[in-house]
């Protein structure tokens, strides 16, 4: 129990208002998956509880044969500054994605498979959406071995029912 009087020399620690973050990723693009992983892992690095919930195309980051070969969209992605007609040429998306992964490697950003391992070792949790798995005819054995659980949306909200929890949709 806390005493009413604060100690004379206050410790550097203060009560955290942000205790847990829950990140939802519904997309398979490099930018979306890495945003989810960096936010989630970064939370663990700050001592914040962290969970990732993958749904829809976000399940690709949990499929062993796909996770390290994700793409960036070259069509409909104004941030890439490639004209739409050129972005749609065969091989463009693969080329742009390979280049992007190379740039990330230079910055010591790990491939998705290794990033998931780092995140898991940090105590982070990873969940998959039950309905999306049914939609894509995926079973738990098709997904990453260290997946924590398959959840319904209700399960997900129940996990969020704690003080200091934030949900982020990337």
């Amino acid at each position, binding site marked *: 129990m806390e005493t009413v009087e604060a100690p004379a020399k206050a*410790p*550097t*620690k203060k009560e955290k208002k942000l205790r847990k973050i829950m990140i939802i990723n519904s997309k398979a693009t490099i930018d979306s998956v890495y945003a989810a992983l*960096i936010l989630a*892992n*970064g939370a*663990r*690095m*700050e*001592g914040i509880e962290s969970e990732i919930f993958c749904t829809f195309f976000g399940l690709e980051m949990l499929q062993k044969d796909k996770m390290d070969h994700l793409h960036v969209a070259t069509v409909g992605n104004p941030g890439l500054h490639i004209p739409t007609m050129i972005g749609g040429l065969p091989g463009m998306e693969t080329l742009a994605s390979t280049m992007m992964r190379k740039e990330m490697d230079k910055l*010591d*950003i*790990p491939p998705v498979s*290794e*990033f998931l391992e*780092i995140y898991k*070792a*940090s*105590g982070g949790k990873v969940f998959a959406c039950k309905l999306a798995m049914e939609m894509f005819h995926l079973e738990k054995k098709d997904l990453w071995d260290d997946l924590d659980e398959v959840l319904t949306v209700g399960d997900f909200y129940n996990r969020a029912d704690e003080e200091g929890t934030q949900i982020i949709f990337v």
Partner: protein
Amino acid sequence: MEAVIANRPVEVNEQGYLLDMNQWDKEIARGIALEEGIELTDRHFEVLNYLRKEQESGTALSIRRVGKSGVVDIKEFYALFPEGPLKKASRIAGIPKPASCI
């Protein structure tokens, strides 16, 4: 600014990181660790010495790099320095706070 750690005056920044890593010794480390709620063991010091060596050689530290060091794996790193291992361990090791996102 000046702070007194282990009964010795040392220069620290606003977040409590030593400004000069040469002012560091085991007693200072124990003093800072106590503020972080950690009691240091020999195992902690193995990690701290590794971090200091990396800092001296000018390496940018990240959790990934520490995990690949062969000194400590990521799981143990989190267990030794709970709730933010990289920043806590760096502070206890008397080196600057790493500006790493990974």
